[in-house]
């Protein structure tokens, strides 16, 4: 138990400002990434569910590419390859763009499944009231299918948040990167990884609690 005996709380306290900055950067990239993944998932999920020609095939290709390659490879691609074709991005931009594209692909599938689970007969009830197909989507398919997609899309948002920790490799000073560099300089490995574990647990717990509230409010009162 040497490791516990040598655990120094004060070391964490001494580095609190840097860690706080890292935490804020994690939250920034996550918030933009989750927001973007929501929008991408919603739009492409709707396009996939309604089998809109060409756009649907393009969306499917995007989803397959992202789902079938490691996110680390995607990050490297954005960070190292894009500058060669003239698109050079800041580490912060790479961070949120990468998690957004990743989360958007998974969320496309979440929303597609949700929208497809809305029975055709409910859509017909909307059409019969005189809604155009697009307004039927907004008034029937979206509220019903969005609720069906909610639990799985929440898992995606949590993964988006945790995936920001990979931005270590592009030098974006988010929480993991900050903790990693502190322990690299000081060899205070255990303290730093303990901080990371507790911090991520706390963030994800808070996020899940928030989302559970939302879920309870929006829950469909019956099985379809």
């Amino acid at each position, binding site marked *: 138990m040497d490791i516990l005996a040598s655990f120094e709380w004060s070391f964490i306290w001494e580095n609190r400002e840097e860690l706080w900055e890292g935490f804020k950067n994690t939250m920034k990239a996550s918030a933009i990434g989750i927001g973007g993944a929501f929008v991408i998932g919603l739009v492409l999920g709707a396009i996939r569910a309604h089998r809109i020609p060409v756009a649907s095939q393009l969306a499917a290709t995007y989803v397959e590419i992202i789902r079938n390659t490691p996110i680390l490879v995607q990050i490297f691609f954005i960070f190292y390859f894009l500058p060669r074709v003239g698109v050079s991005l800041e580490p912060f931009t790479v961070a949120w763009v990468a998690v957004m594209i990743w989360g958007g692909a998974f969320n496309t599938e979440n929303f597609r499944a949700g929208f497809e689970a809305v029975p055709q007969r409910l859509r017909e*009830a909307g059409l019969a009231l005189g809604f*155009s197909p697009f307004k039927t989507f907004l008034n*029937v398919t979206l*509220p019903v299918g969005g609720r069906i997609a909610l639990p799985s899309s929440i898992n995606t948002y949590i993964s988006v948040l945790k995936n920001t920790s990979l931005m270590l490799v592009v030098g974006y000073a988010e929480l993991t990167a900050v903790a990693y560099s502190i322990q690299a300089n000081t060899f205070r490995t255990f303290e730093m990884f303990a901080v990371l574990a507790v911090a991520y647990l706390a963030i994800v717990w808070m996020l899940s609690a928030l989302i559970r509230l939302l879920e309870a409010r929006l829950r469909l009162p*019956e099985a*379809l």
Partner: protein
Amino acid sequence: MQERGEGIAAALADEPGAKTNGTPVVRAEQIHKSFGDNVVLDGIDLEVSTGETLVVIGPSGSGKSTLLRCINLLEPIQSGRIFFEGEEITKKGVRVDQVRQRIGIVFQQFNLFPHLRVMDNLTLGARRVKKMPRREAEERARDLLVRVGLPEKERSYPHQLSGGQQQRVAIARALVMQPHVMLFDEVTSALDPELVGEVLVVMRDLARSGMTMIVVTHEMQFAREVGDRLTFMDEGKIVEQGIPADVLDRPKQERTRKFLRRSLQMAHSLEELTITQEGEAE
């Protein structure tokens, strides 16, 4: 119950579309519809005048539900023409959503929106399609809930209601839009027997209030008492039509007779029925 019928009439009194000139509300000319090789409607002609209740009966698969779905353009037809208040609605360039606003339909499975309370189910179309102010829409909805006997259910969700109650809400939801014709697609077929009556009563009162209706049903008693005209369909064709009592009691066509005999409601006892080679009750 007569007062209730008049009640619905009062609720619909400001109907703009109660045209009393000779134009039929719905007229269909030689409708043909098939799903792949399967011919579902094979040259249907049909006419419904203002205030009339047309009842359509026939064996399952005879195309009667498809006919209703074609009339409010949920199904495209292969050939033929459908007119609504004199205007052809099957030609290119017709705003389908605008036509549907004036045609109410009630489905076998109710199809209420599960995420909305009864009140919002009723007002959604009025507010978002007709752009009626919420207050006005809710007032109208409350009136109709009284008429269908469910004034205390406006805060309920559909799943908290019985099938009969859900179906009455569905009827009210269609009526909020002030339709010029109401289509009923086997609206009691999914209900437990003891819940059928409450829905049929609402429909009877609606018919008495002067609503133009096309009712696809298996309820022979309803057809007899409420229908102004009865149409018997089989294999995508209209086999026979006329005054309901005439068709039911003195069918001219053998196919009508066969159907009515098979229909248990018309047989006096199960003993009269046997199973034929084709597996049908005879």
